[in-house]
């Protein structure tokens, strides 16, 4: 039976009708009548085979395109510069250390499979990130929190006062004068790259 082909034509005309909703009534009526007439003549009399129906519809073009030619809406709604997947990818790069770096890997995959950046920008995003990912690991060492083992003890003296032994530290830690700027750098560079990639993102760049 011809139900498939009927449905193809019906769906096409329906899509055209809704796409043409924004046209002035006269233009809309003319357009729909013209396209119906075209379909009648192109398809001939039923039964039609599915392939010829598809060819006829393909040659007509997308309903949105036809409506745009009639002065209606743009051919396609403008694409957002950053899609959700791009934003997630960017966010995962610096904060991807969660889940032992798997987040970062997902971020890299999202970065490279997106068309929002050029290859050079993708490289930049990929190369900088190992630092970003490991920053939480460096941080305690750099800030001297973790590199040293310090111990002291306190006890209550016979007279009820607290007696504290002097703190004893062993181990090595980066002087804070080096560690703090380095940490800031490790955080700042990834953030800067994320902001840069975010601002450069646009459809069809790479």
């Amino acid at each position, binding site marked *: 039976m011809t139900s498939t082909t009927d449905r193809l034509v019906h769906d096409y005309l329906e899509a055209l009708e809704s796409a043409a909703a924004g046209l002035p009534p006269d233009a809309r009526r003319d357009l729909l009548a013209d396209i119906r*007439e*075209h379909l009648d003549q192109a398809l001939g009399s039923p039964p039609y085979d599915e392939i010829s129906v598809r060819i006829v519809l393909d040659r007509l073009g997308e309903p949105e395109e036809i409506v745009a030619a009639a002065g209606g809406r743009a051919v396609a709604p403008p694409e957002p510069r950053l899609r959700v997947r791009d934003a997630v990818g960017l966010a995962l790069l610096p904060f991807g250390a969660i889940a032992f770096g798997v987040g970062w890997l997902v971020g890299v995959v999202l970065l490279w499979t997106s068309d929002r950046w050029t290859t050079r920008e993708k490289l930049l995003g990929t190369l900088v990130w190992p630092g970003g990912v490991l920053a939480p690991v460096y941080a305690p060492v750099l800030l001297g929190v973790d590199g040293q083992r310090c111990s002291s003890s306190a006890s209550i003296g016979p007279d009820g006062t607290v007696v504290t032994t002097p703190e004893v530290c062993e181990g090595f830690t980066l002087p804070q004068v080096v560690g703090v700027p380095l940490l800031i750098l490790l955080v700042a560079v990834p953030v800067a790259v994320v902001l840069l990639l975010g601002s450069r993102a646009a459809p069809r760049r790479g």
Partner: protein
Amino acid sequence: MVAPSGLAQLRRGAIEHCVLALLDREERYGFDLVRELGESGELVTSEGTIYPLLSRLRRDGLVETTWRASDAGPPRRYYRLTDSGRTALAGFRTEWARFRDAVDAVLGTRGDAA
């Protein structure tokens, strides 16, 4: 596929006058016009976009239409060039030749030079 907007506008203007040129020789019905324009694949990629163009030409008074009975199927709307359509076509032919030559000269795309 959407051409860059500058080229798209150039195309639109050119195709519009190609329609006028096809009607210069004889009156034709819409489907026949659309099929001939679509034939080369170069001028028109989406046949459906010709119909809004024909409506615009009619609104602008460059073509006029009449309904004629058809041997096969329902009556057809025939398009015919009006006097102002003929004037517009003649103007475009001159302009186009000048424009094409100037562009070819700059691009080095003259048939004999390429």
